[in-house]
């Protein structure tokens, strides 16, 4: 009798472990954060790209207005690919805030001269601290911030057609 219980428990345990590992194998190894969860926009600070003055997020983002925060760099090839979408968003009168990640100022300037400047304000993030304070995962990355200063959407990687339409849908 005791032996039977022992065998049953062992079997159940084995089956449980098997199921956990089997299900684990089905999941992709690469973590993708939840992008649609609304989170409070963290406070962040940086230096103005042109004047070098220190700017804090509270003074930068006004309530009752939507913002698109975009992290970019001149050395980042996908940033080049998404730039036309950013210019299109600018033409639709959206507030775009750029964060220039670990970049050389003159390279960044020629990038903007070549492709156009879609941003109403750019912060220079020389050591990457601003991006970490914002909770960024890489370059390029785009945050959609609503009127209550909550991040309602994060786009990791370059903006594509689908993302672009989604942004238009979100900010009506």
């Amino acid at each position, binding site marked *: 009798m005791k032996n039977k219980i*022992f065998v049953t428990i062992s079997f159940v*345990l084995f089956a449980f472990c098997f199921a956990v590992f089997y299900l684990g194998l089905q999941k992709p190894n690469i973590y993708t954060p939840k992008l649609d969860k609304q989170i409070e926009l963290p406070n962040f600070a940086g230096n103005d790209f042109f004047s070098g003055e220190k700017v804090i997020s509270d003074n930068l983002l006004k309530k009752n207005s939507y913002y698109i925060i975009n992290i970019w760099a001149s050395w980042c090839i996908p940033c080049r690919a998404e730039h036309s979408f950013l210019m299109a968003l600018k033409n639709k009168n959206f507030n775009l805030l750029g964060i220039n990640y670990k970049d050389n100022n003159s390279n960044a300037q020629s990038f903007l001269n070549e492709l156009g400047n879609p941003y109403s304000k750019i912060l220079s993030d020389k*050591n990457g601290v601003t991006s970490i304070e914002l909770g960024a995962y*890489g370059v390029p990355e785009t945050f959609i911030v609503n009127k209550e200063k909550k991040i309602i959407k994060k786009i990791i990687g370059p903006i594509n057609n689908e993302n672009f339409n989604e942004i238009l849908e979100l900010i009506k």
Partner: protein
Amino acid sequence: MKKLIFFITFFIFLSNNYLLAVDKPSELENKIFKNLRCLICQGQSIYDSQSDFAESMKIVVRKNLETGMSEKDIYQFMKKNYGEWVLYNPEINKGTYLLWSLPIILFVIGGAIIIRKLGVFKK
């Protein structure tokens, strides 16, 4: 020859001094670095990684320690920005209780098996 040895020793002494002068992370900083996951190379901690984002995270940790944040506060700050996933030592909650309790359960069962096999309590 003596002069050469003198210069070599002098040079080693100088370079060693220079290396020591470079800002080395403290023990606490290293402990925190080892418990934070790198965002780019996800199998590594930021302690092991030299990616741009890992380096930025190290700067943020240092900056926060300087402003008087405790180790726990820093973990909370990172958790708020990146989720529980960023910590290598996740806290006990409903999503992780199995993770924490399974080794103990397996240890107890294993111990029970050994005791049974050895017949410790058999009269």
